[in-house]
């Protein structure tokens, strides 16, 4: 509201009336009103399911959850009778909204690429994922390169500008790959790597360079610390700087990897160079070596039942997720697909059948566990007091084929409401961008 001239307040009494009113209006603008969901089947993901449960949302956070809660009477009540409430779905492996700028497939080592530079916040992929209940995504570089680029973590606040969609202060992640894709992409051009031997040696060589670079900087920093005014800083190299961040443990390492032998090699290299692997992605043969990988506390982000699309997916079995989980590996399901991202909830439902995951375990595979892989599990991924109010209201058991997201909230704000006419979006109006292609690793690497 623009006023051409200051309001002239006629009397002191008016001031007394207006001042608290203005204060109240300001407060209302800063935070949405409280919400209370009542009588829902609340699947918390952290502490089981509460029948006829309530959840209280205050200032964008979860302020209460339980059979009964003490919410203020002023809160907006959502009658969730006959509905299910879950944490927002989290996809730890997406290439959505990148306008096919997924792979900088011009060198097998490109750690200074940042996916945020390609992020298209008006992509229709985001809208469709939102309608499927997805509230957080890790947008990853593709798998053409042994060491790819750095990921961006978004909250799916479709309709907001780019920066407002970024997950605030989310840890950084970097994408590595292995196996068929790098060797095919570079091998087909008669470049290194064209074999798995080449693949891994490319990595080792890169880390040797990074160690050298890091040592130069450490030496310089030491000199500066001693007060040496003649010390000259080494030249900054964006690529080596990013690799040094890996070695310093500043980036979560997310590795595209299918075969059992390659998990072992990747872990060995990680031990050799002193970094930790946060998660193996795809990880279709994890069931073969899950006990060993569990010891390294590396998680997996895997497909529910994909197989046979390439040679390294030959031994994929739909029991992989549950078998690996039973051996101590933290398991998430992911989409790697602009299609499957729309129904990760029923992908989780398949795990009830393939190996007998409990409801709690299954829902965790698409909420709390992917949140851990991204490093935001202290903020989202379950319905617990203090966490972001990222919530989905479903018309049916979310682990069934039949569930449709009715309402999707992010930070307590409603972003999708299926009962609305048109798109069902509450913050988006304007032109959506179409996406071409499948949004998948294996589709985007120049195959």
């Amino acid at each position, binding site marked *: 509201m623009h006023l051409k001239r200051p309001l002239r307040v006629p009397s002191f009494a008016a001031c007394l009336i207006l001042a608290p009113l203005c204060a109240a209006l300001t407060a209302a603008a800063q935070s949405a009103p409280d919400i209370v969901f009542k009588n829902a089947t609340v699947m918390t993901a952290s502490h089981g399911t509460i029948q006829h449960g309530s959840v209280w949302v205050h200032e964008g956070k979860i302020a209460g959850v339980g059979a009964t809660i003490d919410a203020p009477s002023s809160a907006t009540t959502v009658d969730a009778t006959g509905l299910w409430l879950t944490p927002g779905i989290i996809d730890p492996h997406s290439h959505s909204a990148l306008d096919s700028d997924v792979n900088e497939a011009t060198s097998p080592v490109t750690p200074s690429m940042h996916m945020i530079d390609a992020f298209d916040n008006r992509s229709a992929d985001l809208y469709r994922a939102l*309608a499927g209940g997805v509230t957080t995504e890790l947008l990853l570089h593709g798998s053409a390169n042994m060491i790819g680029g750095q990921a961006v973590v978004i909250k799916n606040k479709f309709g907001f500008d780019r920066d407002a969609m970024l997950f605030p202060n989310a840890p950084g992640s970097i994408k590595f790959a292995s196996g068929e894709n790098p060797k095919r992409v570079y091998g087909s051009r008669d470049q290194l790597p064209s074999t798995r031997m080449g693949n891994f040696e490319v990595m080792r060589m890169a880390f040797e360079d990074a160690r050298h670079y890091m040592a130069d900087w450490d030496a310089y920093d030491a000199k500066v610390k001693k007060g040496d005014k003649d010390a000259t800083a080494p030249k900054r190299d964006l690529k080596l700087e990013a690799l040094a961040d890996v070695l310093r443990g500043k980036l979560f390492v997310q590795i595209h990897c299918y075969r059992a032998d390659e998990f072992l090699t990747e872990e060995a290299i990680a031990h050799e160079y002193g970094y930790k692997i946060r998660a193996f992605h795809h990880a279709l043969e994890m069931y073969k070596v899950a006990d060993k990988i569990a010891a390294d506390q590396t998680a997996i982000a895997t497909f529910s039942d994909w197989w046979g699309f390439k040679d390294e997916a030959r031994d994929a079995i739909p029991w992989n997720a549950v078998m690996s989980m039973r051996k101590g590996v933290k398991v998430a399901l992911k989409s790697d697909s602009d299609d499957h991202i729309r129904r990760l909830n029923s992908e989780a439902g398949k795990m009830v059948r393939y190996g007998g995951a409990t409801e709690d375990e299954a829902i965790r595979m698409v909420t709390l566990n992917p949140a851990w892989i991204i490093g935001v599990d202290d903020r989202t991924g379950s319905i617990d007091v203090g966490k972001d109010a990222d919530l989905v209201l479903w018309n049916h058991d979310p682990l069934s084929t039949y569930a449709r997201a009715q309402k999707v909230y992010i930070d307590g704000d409603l972003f999708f409401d299926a009962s609305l006419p048109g798109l069902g979006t509450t913050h988006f109006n304007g032109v959506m961008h*179409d996406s071409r292609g499948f949004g998948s690793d294996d589709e985007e690497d120049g195959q």
Partner: protein
Amino acid sequence: MRFLLSLLERPPSLRAAFLSGAGRLLTGEVEGSAVDFRHANSRPWAPQVSKLRPAIAWTLTIALTCLFASSSVQIAAQPESASPQVVAITGGKLLTVSHGTIENGTIILADGKISAVGTAAEVKIPPGAQIVDAKGLTVYPGLIDPESNFGLTEISADQMTNDLEERSDEIMPHMHVYDAFHSETELIAVARLNGITNAVVAPSTGDSIAGQDIFIQLYGRDRDDMIMGRDIALAMNYGAEQRRRDGGRGAGGGSSYPSTRMGLITQLRQSFLDAQDYMTRRDAAAAKKDDKSDKGEKSGDKGDKSPSKRDLKLEALIPYLKGERPVVIGVYEGYDVEVIMGLAQEFHLKVILNHVTAAQDVLDKIASYHVPVIIGSIYDAPRAGERFDAVYSLPAELAKRGAKIAISSADAGGPVSSHSSRNLPYAAGFAVAYGLPYYEGLKAITQDVADMFGFGDKLGSLDVGKMANVVLADGDPLDVRTDVKQVYIQGVAIPMVSRQTRLRDEYSK
């Protein structure tokens, strides 16, 4: 593949034993007299072979370490004969598809067919029948995938395992899927474990006319056992994908004719005209020949314009020009549907529309054609700006308009991938979630598919006289959480194993 290879290195008798299935493999051994699947959920992969006769146990150990999907699956005695014995499945909830649901129903499988179906009170169990207790289970007809590429691919990215399409020309009606169908493919074993018992196998979708389909059952000793119908339909496609342009699919690198939709349609029209002409001349020649032989004259007079040489390509189109068999037309956009239907009507083709996932603007028109429609993939993305469920609701919208629909397993984002054919029931379930009545959803992957391809009297429902393709599951077949416990194909309890279950079992030890 290692497992399969090692299996194939075994003596032929063992291979036959494997291929002929668990039911027959276990001949002569009994533990109990009834099959009980109810407790199979506890540890579905724990094998229990200890009570088997040593020779049988050896067979199992060597060839298929963990043959059985269930610790408590107990197949009763069967005579050492090739024909499956009489099986009585009792106590289950029968989803008949044709006449509603029967609680506590009984269904009798005899000589590969359904010989009785009804309530427990209605159906008498023949003496000596093997009784399968299906209490707590759902019993439904085998599912039928209306578009697959079973046996035409193994590992998608490995070109040497792909026989999906002959891309050297756009008009290839003389390509016969049965010439490439590899019946031992692992994709079939994987799909049938989830109750897919039959399928149409079609070539891939890059050619305007890609070839002729087969209809299969997903179990049998060899190719000929599994193919139920050859050249059952012509696989036709129309739209952007078939254009031969830079970056598009098709032969070679650069653009070549037909590089536009104008070219595609003209080429198709010319092909059907050529075939019509060929048919007319051939029929005329045949008539003349008959005429001459009636009169005792020699054939081969001057002026006889009969095609002296058979043209296999044109000949292949004749049954379709005569309307004897359906033409499955794969098309996505509404405006493409209108163009290709114009051509189909011009040549009086018997059409089955396929895909139509971007044709929301012409649904009334599609219904007005009164042709069956295969919808797939239901997971195709809507256009930017369209509501998120524009494709999910397509089956419901078409059914509402009176169109006969089938739902295919096709995955989104590319040509058919039958690796995920096992997920066919979930595609139907999704259609139900978005407004299709439940029974319509079930019909769209059973009876309606069978009807479209001329197998409606043999398959698609639990009715007397139909083939005994029957599935037992522990819940709603369209729900992802439901576990399939046993699949019968032609009355044979098929081994509930695949390479995937063997890997699972090997690494579960």
